[in-house]
């Protein structure tokens, strides 16, 4: 085998989350009230559009979570020689951990330039002194090694070449989108027993049960962008390159995974605490309630950033003094990312716990819970059967509401220096590096612009989706 799969901790947790999501979806299919609530999400155009965009981000993030270590090609031979001598193969794998996304984006990842270059440029951003053929020195804008290197006369050809590629990209996107449109029309037609013409008009006019038109439109926009990028990225740097010549589009795409990990794993790791303690405090009362309330008052009393700062500083000391725990740099930065999730989770579970405690206090006085108690059902069974299912909507709402806040928090924390490892590509580290570039003359704006666009779209979609989910699941909002 030419690769060695690597499962980082956050990968495992992300995929566990996907499996849990699928199981939850099965459960929802079988439970009518839940199905109805999710249908209410799907009926809202904002909900469907936001979900489509989020799904695109999730696909990028999951592809970036399939990690492996490639076999080192130049060492392969040597390894075989020694293997032949010892009678067994011992392949040597690269210390660099790559992901499936890296493999797909190989052209982007490998086509690095010397330093800054503007989006779609053919030359570097700054003049450099080169030796002319006649021996004299001239200050010119050197051509890029990869960007627009297929053109012989960039100033004359560049615009036409880019335009032609965009036209091709639009054509491809249109073809794929038509296919998706036909599939949706087919599905809608079968679902509500319409003829073709009726189904087409229902989708086009947005009169379907679920808001398919909104989903198709946002899918179309995403498709268009992706295909334009795909057509251009093989020969240009769509978002330019950064200080060490890395493609900014590649960095932005890699940041997505970090944002998703922070946004979801944090809530995932804090949920068991919040649910167990919140429900226990609300249902059992007495000293359990006092103890839980004490713990979360203490945690609340410390300003969030400071508690995070203190914990991250200490975590950093632990990681730095135990280098032997980690095989590769990727594992170390992954450990730091996971620790950050835990720390953020530890500081943010109190809000959810308080909500759950309040809701449980209400529920325990309801007739059906009292009836269960009168029948002699045990406390554990009551909590599992009657309380837990009826507070799950709060957990779900917290999960989607917290996501965008956590993505934003990551950027700020990384700026402050208590976020992800500096080697982890994230929106925070991108902004951090880009900040100094604005002061340059002439200004380098594209890294910041790329980080802004990606983050804004992700957080906006998450905010809109969270609103729709809350409207659908919160009984107080109807």
């Amino acid at each position, binding site marked *: 085998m030419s690769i060695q799969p690597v499962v980082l901790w956050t990968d495992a947790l992300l995929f566990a989350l996907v499996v849990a999501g699928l199981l939850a979806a099965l459960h929802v299919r079988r439970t009518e009230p839940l199905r109805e609530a999710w249908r209410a999400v799907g009926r809202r155009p904002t909900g469907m559009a936001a979900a489509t965009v989020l799904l695109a981000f999730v696909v990028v993030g999951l592809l970036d979570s399939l990690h492996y270590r490639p076999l080192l090609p130049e060492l392969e031979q040597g390894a075989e020689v020694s293997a032949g001598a010892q009678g067994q193969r011992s392949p040597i794998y690269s210390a660099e951990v790559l992901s499936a996304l890296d493999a797909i984006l190989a052209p982007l990842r490998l086509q690095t330039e010397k330093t800054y270059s503007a989006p779609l440029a053919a030359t570097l951003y700054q003049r450099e002194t080169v030796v002319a053929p006649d021996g004299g020195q001239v200050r010119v804008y050197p051509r890029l090694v990869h960007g627009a290197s297929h053109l012989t006369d960039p100033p004359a050809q560049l615009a036409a070449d880019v335009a032609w590629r965009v036209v091709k990209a639009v054509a491809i996107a249109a073809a794929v989108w038509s296919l998706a449109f036909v599939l949706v029309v087919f599905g809608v037609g079968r679902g509500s027993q319409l003829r073709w013409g009726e189904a087409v008009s229902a989708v086009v006019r947005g009169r379907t049960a679920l808001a398919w038109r909104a989903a198709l439109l946002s899918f179309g926009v995403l498709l268009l962008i992706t295909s334009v990028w795909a057509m251009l990225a093989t020969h240009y740097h769509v978002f330019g390159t950064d200080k060490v010549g890395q493609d900014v589009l590649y960095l932005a795409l890699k940041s997505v995974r970090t944002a998703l990990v922070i946004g979801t794993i944090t809530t995932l790791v804090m949920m068991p605490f919040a649910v167990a303690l919140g429900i226990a405090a609300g249902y059992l009362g007495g000293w359990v309630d006092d103890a839980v309330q*004490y*713990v979360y*008052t*203490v*945690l*609340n*009393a*410390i*300003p969030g*950033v*400071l*508690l995070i*700062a*203190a*914990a991250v*500083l*200490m975590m*950093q*000391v*632990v990681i*730095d*003094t135990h280098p032997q725990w980690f095989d590769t740099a990727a594992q170390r930065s992954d450990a730091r990312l996971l620790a950050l999730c835990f720390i953020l989770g530890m500081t943010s579970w109190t809000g959810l716990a308080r909500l759950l405690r309040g809701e449980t206090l209400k529920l325990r006085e309801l007739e059906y819970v009292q009836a269960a108690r009168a029948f002699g059902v045990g406390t554990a069974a009551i909590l599992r059967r009657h309380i837990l299912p009826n507070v799950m909507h709060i957990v779900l709402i917290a999960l989607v509401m917290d996501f*965008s806040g956590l993505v*934003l928090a990551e*950027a*700020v924390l990384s*700026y*402050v*220096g*208590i976020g992800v490892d500096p080697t982890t590509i994230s*929106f925070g580290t991108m*902004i951090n590096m880009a*900040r100094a570039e*604005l002061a340059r003359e002439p200004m380098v704006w594209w890294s*910041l612009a790329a980080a*802004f666009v990606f*983050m*804004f779209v992700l*957080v*906006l979609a998450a*905010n*809109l989706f969270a*609103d729709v989910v809350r409207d659908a699941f919160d009984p107080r909002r109807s």
Partner: protein
Amino acid sequence: MFAYLVRRVLYAIPILIGVNMLTFVLFFVVNSPDDMARMQIGIKRATPEAIERWKVERGYDKPLFFNDAASGTGRLTDTIFFDKSLRMFAFDFGRADDGRDIAQEIRDRMAPSLAIALPTFALGLFAAVSLALLLVFFRATYLDFWGVVGCVAMMSISSLFYIIGGQWLVSKLWALVPISGYAAGIDAARFLVLPVLIGVVAGIGSSTRWYRTIFLEEISKDYVRTARAKGLSELRVLFRHVLKNAMIPILTGVVVVIPLLFMGSLLMESFFAIPGLGSYTIDAINAQDFAVVRAMVFIGSVLYIVGLILTDISYTLVDPRVRLE
């Protein structure tokens, strides 16, 4: 009311002890002082002597809880726990790594922090409540719809972009105010305009939406219908009835942050080079000055508890039904 306040202050003590224990565990038990020393000196240069010197300089060479070598009360007081944790209750924070007295530093840096945090807070609150009332006045119209869309869009932008964008636009492109820095006295205004403005704009999306929800909840109640039935104008209903009755949820969220304004804003102060407590904290974090971070954690929790008590008192001011007993 006095008895109530005394009780609240007494309640605060176990919470502060909890905070204290938590920071103690975090800073001295999770990592031994040796680990911290090795980290600060640099793993490669950390000889046993260097570590020992580092610990002696900072007073980390004592036992954690119990000192067998000392005699009398010294057995309990000549320890890290007493020196570094318990002394905080007397606001004695010891010295920072650069040798300066932390308590003095905090006193000096409070004013710049307040100078930027207080106007940001007041203007932000005023702007958000006004905008929310405006949206509620035009509820269920296009103005309301697009207003909410604007709020959601604005809260989807990281505060880092507001700061970077604002600095670039106002200071660099238009050259209206200095890009960063601080001066004492009236001269400070020049440096404060931009951070305050950015602070207000950055927070306005989420807070306007939050107040709008509160007002909308209030406006569907019976007393509002009665007020309208009496023939009051919509403006009067909004200001005299809705705003007044929405004070309790507004105060719940607002009053608790007032004391924390002393702590300043980490981001604003570090971007604008304002010598307040926020930039002090950020510098301490970057320099891994554990003593300063511990002091700030303690002060932050004290201020938070003060905020909770103030919140309770403020309820009695706006709602005559609430009595503190």
